[in-house]
């Protein structure tokens, strides 16, 4: 059991959502670990869908982005939901620059919001017949006569299994890609909805993973389309989920547990750790919230490694800053800042999603973070508004106390080295009256920029 203290609660809120303020921390501290985690992950799917028209208008796309960012800023009980939306957007990365249809992107985003914590099987089925994905990975042009392997291959490689298992043994062969591709044929996009069309489906028998001991075929695999007539007695996605690795364990749960751990905790977890995360997920029939709960309940999730080895992505960085400082925003200008920081929502660089880790902090993008920090700290309009008097206790009379209060708000007080803290204190130039408007406007706002530019605020 971990000690349920403020530091651990803040860490949980930073990873499970976009960071919390003092009030959040004390609330989730009161709950205790188990109740806190349950309250976070046991959220019913929300059908909320953003704006977005069926074309590729840039202003329209910008409103969709702003709509989503605003949800992240505001999310309270549903913070995990928006975080999982972002995770699944990265996992099932789809780019509007290819799809060129804001409506389809908006619908996919709603799908992540609705199914993002429920059954992984349902989510995979929904994504398989998702209009944006059908376009992005060519599912809509993959027919019985002209199969296109793009989706089938990426489904196994990036979405469900990985090229090889934890022992480095290949999970599938080219022939498996071809067979899976046949099972995924039959979809097209009609009136902005991914639709199954039997005339395009390859109804012949397919053999999955013939070289594996647990051979799943041959059978007429397809994908059950819940809205329409089941098209095959065997669901191809179930067959893929039944794949076992060279240890004889189910491949998908280990694969997904690894992806979750690397996203929410730290890189390169051990096999033993992963196997501690998956039992509930497997027993419950692949409910995503179960896997997430296992991550957040694990002692290792509260280790120093889990708190210091990941770089916040620009969303996490910016939204956390806004939330922690109690700033308000209409989010209209934020998509541009996000783009400069290297994260254009709905436009990941490729099907792999965004590269995680240190590449977020390449020099140009790091400077863009400082620019965002400056805009936030100097925010005096509805685009971004921050009130210095609300951020600090203006009755304080020493720069050291104000510095500590601000670092505390940002959740980095205990990590900043002493000399860096001293530099921040010195920045106030001996100010003692924190009711003075010049001190508030110039030095308090200024110090916020500097703190948001510290290494400790870039990582979690």
């Amino acid at each position: 059991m971990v000690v349920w203290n403020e530091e651990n609660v803040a860490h949980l809120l930073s990873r499970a959502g976009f960071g919390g303020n003092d009030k959040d921390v004390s609330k989730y501290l009161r709950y205790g670990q188990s109740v806190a985690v349950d309250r976070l992950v046991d959220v019913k799917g929300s059908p909320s869908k953003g704006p977005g028209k069926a074309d590729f208008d840039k202003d329209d796309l910008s409103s969709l982005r702003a709509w989503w960012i605003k949800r992240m800023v505001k999310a309270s009980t549903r913070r995990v939901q928006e975080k999982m939306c972002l995770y699944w957007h990265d996992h099932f990365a789809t780019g509007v620059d290819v799809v060129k249809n804001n409506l389809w992107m908006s619908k996919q985003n709603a799908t992540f919001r609705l199914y993002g914590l429920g059954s992984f099987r349902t989510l995979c089925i929904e994504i398989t017949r998702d209009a944006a994905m059908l376009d992005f990975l060519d599912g809509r042009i993959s027919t019985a006569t002209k199969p296109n392997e793009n989706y089938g291959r990426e489904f196994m490689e990036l979405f469900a299994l990985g090229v090889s298992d934890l022992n480095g043994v290949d999970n599938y062969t080219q022939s498996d890609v071809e067979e899976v591709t046949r099972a995924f044929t039959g979809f097209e996009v009609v009136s902005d909805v991914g639709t199954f069309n039997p005339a395009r489906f390859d109804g012949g028998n397919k053999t999955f993973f013939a070289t594996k001991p647990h051979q799943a075929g041959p059978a007429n695999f397809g994908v059950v389309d819940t809205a329409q007539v089941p098209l095959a007695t065997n669901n191809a996605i179930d067959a893929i989920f039944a794949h076992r690795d060279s240890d004889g364990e189910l491949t998908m749960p280990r694969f997904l547990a690894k992806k979750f751990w690397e996203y929410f905790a730290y890189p390169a977890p051990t096999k033993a750790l992963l196997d501690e995360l998956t039992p509930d997920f497997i027993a419950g029939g692949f409910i995503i919230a179960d896997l997430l709960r296992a991550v957040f309940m694990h002692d290792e999730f509260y280790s120093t490694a889990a708190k210091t080895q990941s770089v916040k992505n620009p969303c996490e960085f910016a939204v956390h800053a806004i939330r922690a400082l109690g700033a308000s925003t209409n989010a209209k200008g934020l998509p541009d800042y996000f783009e400069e920081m290297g994260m254009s929502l709905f436009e990941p660089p490729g099907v792999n999603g965004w590269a995680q880790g240190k590449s977020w902090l390449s020099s140009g993008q790091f400077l863009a973070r400082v620019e965002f920090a400056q805009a936030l700290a100097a925010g005096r309009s509805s685009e971004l508004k921050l009130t210095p008097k609300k951020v600090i206790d203006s009755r304080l009379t020493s720069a050291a106390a104000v510095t500590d209060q601000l670092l505390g708000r940002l959740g980095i007080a205990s990590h900043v080295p002493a000399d860096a803290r001293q530099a921040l204190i010195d920045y106030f130039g001996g100010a003692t009256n924190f009711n003075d408007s010049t001190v508030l406007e110039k030095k308090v706002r200024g110090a916020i920029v500097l703190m948001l530019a510290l290494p400790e605020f870039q990582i979690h």
Partner: protein
Amino acid sequence: MATTRREFLQRSAAAAAALVAPHPIMQAMMGGVANAMGPADAIFVLVQLEGGNDGLNTVAPIDGPQRSIYETKRPNLKIPAVNLLNIGADPVTGDDLGLHPSMSALKALYDLGHVAVVNGVGYPGQSGSHFRSEDIWLGGISSSQNFSSGWFGRYLDVDQPGALVSFDCDNTLSPLFFGDDSNVLAFKRLSDFALPDDPLYPDLPAKKATLQDAYDAEATDTSGLQMTVGVSGQALLSKLDDYQAVSTSWSSNLNGIAGNLAARLKQVASIIRHDYTLASPNPTGARFFHVRLGGFDTHTKQGALAGRQADLLFQVSQALSAFYGDMVALGVGSKVLTMTFSEFGRRVSENGGPATAGTDHGAASPLFVVGDPVVGGVFGRLPALDTAQLENGRNLQWHTDFRSVYATVIQRWLNADPVPILGGAFPMQGFLT
């Protein structure tokens, strides 16, 4: 915390390996890379022509059987043979080829042997989509692979991990540079590279001094990712000073040349001048540059002797030639290699009538490699123009894989092994030896 740092490094096996790899020159001496010839501080400038440049009117046939097919398929857009700037015979067909008449400046460089024209460059499975084809060119991948990193990003990962040696002359970083451990600056204008300040309560000197002290403390007193970020913060602040010291007021050949490309190359030239000629105590260290010029998507009213494409080619020719002139004048001509590319060429047959003719998305097209190190001349071949030999009956068939051009640059100019970067071996081209 030592474990933390080690684990972080392990995240990128390639980057970690590169940290302990010998210097490229040493590698060459050890036989790791054959025929390496680029200087250790080789400069490479990649010029991207966005929208799909019509290669057939950039390098057009002057005579022979190709010429008559060209005239038939392009009744309105054909460049009269008499106007084309003759660059000699196609190495395969033997027929004469000519540059677009607006490219006289580049032709003059060609005549001096400083320009290689590589014809018929492309890849199998041309998609015809701007976005997809840019991904393929920038990623250095095959048309069946999905994009995950840029070819130059992978080069940096292997050869210059983490080093701040690249400058993308644009506000957002090109996918060209995406990698595990590439560190690239991206600014449209040098003046954009500055710490921001509060316009109502300016306090920049104090902020900068505080950040400097804070990053110094982070870099020495912490470990793991904290320290890594602290160190790169230090580097960023010091680069800021270096770049702000770069002057763009000097008698560059690019002064007075209209258009976007010249404006961007001027910044590149200014950085190189700052680092190499002024013996500045604070060099930026930038050696790899990417600049873009848009507007080549000439579906309509492309023009022949004059018009949209002529204006763009004029700009490219003037800017490349003036940039070359700057490099020679600065005494770094032997260190600088410049290469152009476009995501695809355009259809052989024009569309529309006399007043509106343009060309639609095509496939193979030529590219230019410019600089003193270049072996001048025509490489590759102009693809056959008769319908039977066109891709899908409409597009120029590629003969030189674009990755073969990259491989030549990586091996013979950047002194690295192209095989792991490009995921396979591609034949060397003769424009570098």
